[in-house]
């Protein structure tokens, strides 16, 4: 490993350190050095969205981020969505609606969908479709994915009303 750099970062709320070559992508670092293989590589060029994570809350393809850029940032992957052993509403709805077939694109879709709903709790179908346009799915035709996100949004709005 030439030119390895030590990176201190936060991943899914936990402090994490890893050493990686400076030209290694965050995707590869997360997969190979942090062990978070829920981050999937479909293309490596930002065209499929399977490696989607958030960095400081911003949605990114982790294949288009260098591992060293994560220094001091907060990274969230699909592994960080469920809390205290409970699935996130989106995760449960993806299962309930059969919104996954092979499942390789699912982690990226979930992170993107969560980011959408955090920003816009009540998106219409078009908004959902455009927000997820950076995530390719080859199995489902997106139908059940969009339905799962709509249903999750509904439940999340109900839950947040209750909390208030």
């Amino acid at each position, binding site marked *: 490993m030439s030119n390895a750099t030590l990176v201190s970062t936060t991943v899914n709320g936990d402090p994490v350190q890893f050493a990686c070559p400076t030209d290694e992508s965050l995707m590869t670092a997360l997969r190979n050095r942090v062990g978070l*293989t829920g981050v999937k590589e479909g*293309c490596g060029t930002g065209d499929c969205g399977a490696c989607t994570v958030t960095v400081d809350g911003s949605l990114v393809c982790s294949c288009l981020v260098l591992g060293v850029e994560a220094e001091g940032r907060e990274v969230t992957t699909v592994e960080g969505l469920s809390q205290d052993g409970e699935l996130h509403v989106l*995760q449960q709805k993806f299962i309930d609606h059969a919104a996954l*077939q092979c499942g390789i694109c699912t*982690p990226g879709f979930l992170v993107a969908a969560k980011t959408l709903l955090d920003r816009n709790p009540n998106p219409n179908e078009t908004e959902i479709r455009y927000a997820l*346009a950076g995530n390719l799915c080859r199995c489902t035709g997106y139908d*059940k994915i969009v339905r799962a996100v709509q249903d999750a949004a509904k439940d999340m709005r109900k839950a947040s009303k209750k909390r208030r």
Partner: protein
Amino acid sequence: MGHEQKYVDKKYEVVGTRFNRPDGIDKVTGKARYGADASAPGQLVGRVLRSPHAHASIVKINTSKAEKLPGVKAIITSADLPDVTGGDQGLADILENCMARGRALYDGHAVAAVAAVDEQTAAQALKLIDVKYKKLPHVTDVDEAMCESAPVIHDRIITRGVEPKPTKPSNVAARTQMGHGDIEAGFAEADVVIEKSYKTEQTHQGYIEPHACLASVNPDGTAELWVTTQGHFVFRNVCASLLGLDIAKLKVTSSEIGGGFGGKTHVWVEPVALALSRKANRPVKLVMGRDEVFRATGPTSSTSIDVKMGAKKDGTITAAVAEMRYQGGAFPGNWAMLGCMTAFACYDIKNNQSIGWDVVVNRPKVAAYRAPSAPMAAFAVESTIDELAKEIGIAPIDMRLKNVAREGTLAPYGPTYGPIGIEHTLKAVKDHPHMRAKLKKNQGRGVACGFWFNIGGQTCTDLNISVDGTVNLTLGTVDVGGSRSSMAMIAAEELGIPYEQVRANIADTTSLGHNDMTEGSRGTFSSGMATIFAARDAISVLKQRAAKMWGITEEDVIWENGQALATGDSHSNLPPLSLKEIAAKSGRTGGPIAGHNEVVADGAGMGFASHICDVEVDPETGRSTIVRYTVVQDAGKAINPDYVEGQFQGGATQGIGWALNEEYIYGDDGCLQNAGFLDYRIPVCSDLPFIDTQILEVPNPLHPYGVRGVGETSIVPPLAAVGNAIANATGVRMTHAPMSPPRVLAGIDTLEHAS
């Protein structure tokens, strides 16, 4: 006992309802392990060096510089994969496709591979391998490849199926012909004859997970392979044959599979990874890049098809002829033959003939892609039927119903159909509210039909009952679309226990007998059948044990609703014994309780579908937007309707992508120009509306539940459904797929110039 394949009508408790899949939580939490998610102690990184030329002699490969690079552990070329195929040309072709032997046959053809301690070293080593090429003339177009003047790719190819037998080699591997009746007489009867030529471009299965494997070979000839595949047993057999290993000593484990659609029925890098591991004596992980997937793994054929059809004024099709040319990439396939078999399969046409030409070109070896070869043939035939209908002045849906194939119709590929569902789908389409919905400006509607055989094949299943009454169902067919859930439902149905009590798993090759691939829409059909039989096998054991527990004869025990009941007046006081109770005592009544089944699940039942498509065309840019889409398909029996719908929607979407934008683009240099998801444009979420589905159930007589394969047929109609919708919207008949904006705009121009 209980291995009766015939359909029996009955009421179901579990089958036909919707249950969540057992692998769901792993897949939504990122825990599921796919091809690239495994690692082994001391593993190396494998990378492949690929030809930058469409066709070239490999004059010399100098690996000495790369070998000296610290961290490089093995470099292989074809010399490290000696031909041990023993004259089996099919296997030899696979071997040559995995690693070029003296000649690179297409852009992306593997010429060498390296295993190194890390990614960086492996990448650097590839750059240090010096390959001297001598460029050769190439051909990538199917029509050009058939010309006299085309460079001949293989000297060994002499066209089969032509009399007299040709004396010279050519790029035409085979001629196929099928059909029946008197063509000339049929056309003489016709009032209207339409003749058109069509082209379809090459498309890729486009699974999101690239090919990936982890191979480990020991000096004693034992080996392990972790791989993303549609069939690990077949991969095992093929890899063992190519590397000269004993089949039983190669353990293959199928990872979760990130999509296949036919593309993961063929080996590409797996033998290379095994050869690297054998040479390095360490595990080697080999993961393809996306560009490698496009350049060097299984796209489908590009085609050129001529269709001529004649009909009477009442809509009866009197004659139909198709001549179809399919390229199989750099190695011969039987893709045109499949086109011939499917072209007119939806219809009862007294006089029909299909001629197919299987052609080789300098492109990657074609692999099966969901109902392989059928969508292109359907594009040509279903478009022509609409033209006939227009000429005659009859609604396209009525034209199809007038000529539809039924039970007893002679199929164009020879036999007579049993009970089939094409007429049911067409009637459902005719009655569908979608057909009556208003169209807006620049919108049009198209209907098209599709057919796929579906196949069965060898299957083997174990069902083990634990002492607490929970059930392990061990399957050998890879789960590509939720089949574990469907199989668990079937086991629960047969045993009469709740779905949650059954856990379905996919076994590795050392844990179960041979299973064919999950291909040809066979997964649920064949493993479902084996599961039924295995469960019935287990039930007979459960009944024996209950008889023992009661101290009565086995003949007096029946199985109902998950429990054993003693029959006959003498036993009426015996309370029922549940599966759980029997399982708990199994250690004392004869040991573990299990059911097994090995079956050749033939008779998968033909799949038919009819689709409705509404499209809006921008007349100034030629861009088409799908505004509404409906799939109607006969599933025989939907075990889990969620996953059946998923297959319908996914297949339709792949077909829509093919219809609108997906295509391989080759430059004049014969190199692929769009080897990435940026310019190989598969549909994105915002491109589509919801895909409506309607499941019809015309039972398959050769499955106990009536199941038919459902996975593939849905990709067959969309090309023509979209084309017919565009024709309806614009008046332009598109004959070249994909019907991309420039092609549609050019079509609109031609129409305007003509008027």
